[in-house]
């Protein structure tokens, strides 16, 4: 039977199928449940320096091919979050803390305040003023913040990138220069939905980010481009719901995949096991290893 275990962005995992940031990771109980349901790793909801309630509702709306959301980075602050990480670790999978800040100082403060198995810098949230993508669309910011956090933490550091730029590879290279151990691509695409009855934007924040099946081809392309240009691993996220989606991401060059929006499907937490098992069966059928699958599509360049 093919092995799915190995190193993903500097972290040892039993399989490369992870819980994505922002989905369910508000509490330790949810992180632990994802791990016990078969996730190879779990990423927390993004945590910042101060508690935030998030945007007014609606915070999520279902649209063609996916979901549009503007949660607004709700979180209890890092000061109240260590307990959740510790409970999450009881699930037996590494817990990666997603963190955000208004600038370099806050990123460092939050990272130093948490003990996790890895960090993922949220430099890509598309719907919070002066946070996330508003910082992370500039390569120089990505590089500086990555370097500052990397100097202060002893665990692997990933940078989650925004696709809402002309050149995502430029951001990936900046993260690599800053010392990142991996990049995660992609965050949601800037999007909007309007209520036809009233003419009002549906989201409380008016604008939001699109996730789900609609963005998968965009994510696959970003992963492909990043994996072609970078020396550090790329973790693929965006519309992964089935083992075929995971295989596609890995063929584009992903070291691992993250699952987000698909957790809202009827199978719920069962999705981790179904993706991992499907991937293993596929490798067995093809007589391939995970390593042989990785970047397969790039042979045809």
């Amino acid at each position: 039977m093919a092995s799915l275990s190995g190193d993903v962005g500097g972290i040892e995992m039993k399989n490369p199928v992870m819980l994505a940031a922002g989905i369910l990771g508000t509490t330790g109980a949810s992180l632990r449940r994802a791990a016990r349901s078969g996730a190879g790793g779990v990423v927390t909801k993004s945590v910042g320096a101060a508690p935030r309630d998030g945007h007014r509702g609606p915070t999520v709306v279902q649209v063609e091919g996916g979901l549009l959301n503007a949660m607004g980075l709700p979180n209890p602050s890092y000061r109240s979050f260590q307990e959740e990480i510790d409970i999450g670790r009881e699930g037996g999978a590494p817990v990666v803390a997603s963190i955000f800040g208004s600038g370099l100082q806050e990123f460092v403060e939050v990272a130093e305040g948490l003990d996790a198995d890895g960090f993922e810098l949220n430099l890509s949230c598309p719907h919070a003023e002066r946070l996330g993508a508003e910082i992370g669309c500039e390569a120089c910011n990505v590089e500086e913040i990555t370097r500052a956090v990397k100097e202060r933490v002893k665990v692997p550091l990933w940078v989650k990138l925004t696709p809402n730029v002309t050149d995502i590879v430029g951001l990936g290279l900046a993260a690599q220069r800053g010392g990142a151990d991996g990049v995660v691509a992609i965050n949601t695409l800037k999007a909007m939905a309007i209520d036809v009855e009233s003419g009002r934007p549906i989201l409380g924040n008016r604008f939001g980010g699109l996730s789900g099946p609609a963005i998968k081809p965009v994510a696959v392309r970003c992963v492909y481009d990043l994996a072609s240009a970078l020396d550090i691993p790329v973790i693929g996220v965006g519309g992964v719901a089935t083992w075929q989606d995971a295989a596609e991401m890995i063929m584009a060059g992903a070291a691992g995949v993250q699952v987000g929006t698909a957790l809202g499907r009827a199978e719920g937490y069962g999705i981790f096991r179904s993706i991992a098992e499907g991937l293993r069966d596929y490798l067995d059928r093809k007589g391939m290893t995970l390593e042989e699958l990785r970047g397969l599509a790039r042979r045809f360049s």
Partner: protein
Amino acid sequence: MRPKSAEIVEIVRETSSVRTLRFDLELDPVPGQYLMVWVRGVDEVPMSISYRNGITVQLVGEATRAIFDLSVGDGLGLRGPLGNGFLLTGKRILLVGGGVGAAPLALLGEAAREEGMEVSTLLGFRCCDDLLFRERFERIGDLVITTDDGSEGICGRASAGLSSLNLQEFDQIYLCGPEPMMADVIGRCRGMETKIQASIDRYFKCGMGICGSCAIDPSGIRVCVEGPVIRADRLVGTEFGRYRRGPSGLKK
């Protein structure tokens, strides 16, 4: 789905702080299911369904204030019915409600009567002025009322009325109301937890099981999709009755 646009066709003032809104569309709910109600320009909040085409709202904050300011002919955006409602089972059932928690139980009791079940109800209110849906419950079976100040029925909390009932007679007990009341009832019914279904209130943001803000410790049950009705044996030993989380995820 995107929010469906609904027009308010009737507003009933039930008490000084509770109103019922009837809509121009049939919701076809399972009793116990809820709607995400979008008050355009204000917020989107979960509301339990009290009629096949209506909700019953208690004034508690900004979003419900905005709902109270609406008139017949005004519109709301509705997502749902969402979540898992009550499962009707057995021949004799007991409904136990507190305050506005009576709303989904009235719809449930009426569905039970249609199925030919025998329905008894125990409702607790603060005072006689807060009584909700008395006629609806009296029409479907026996009704015991308690009030905190003794102005109607038995004086005390809803649980004070439990002693007037032989709980062993009931095949299933359905709860909806303030959490301390429900936790108290469950605590007094040791050994019967698998026969009790409780409708749980938590902070919902997405209503589709992905944001995690309504997850219960330590199981991680997502109340918005795995509930809001949860069997009591899955609540024993959890945060239920002890704490909940607010919009930021902080415990309170």
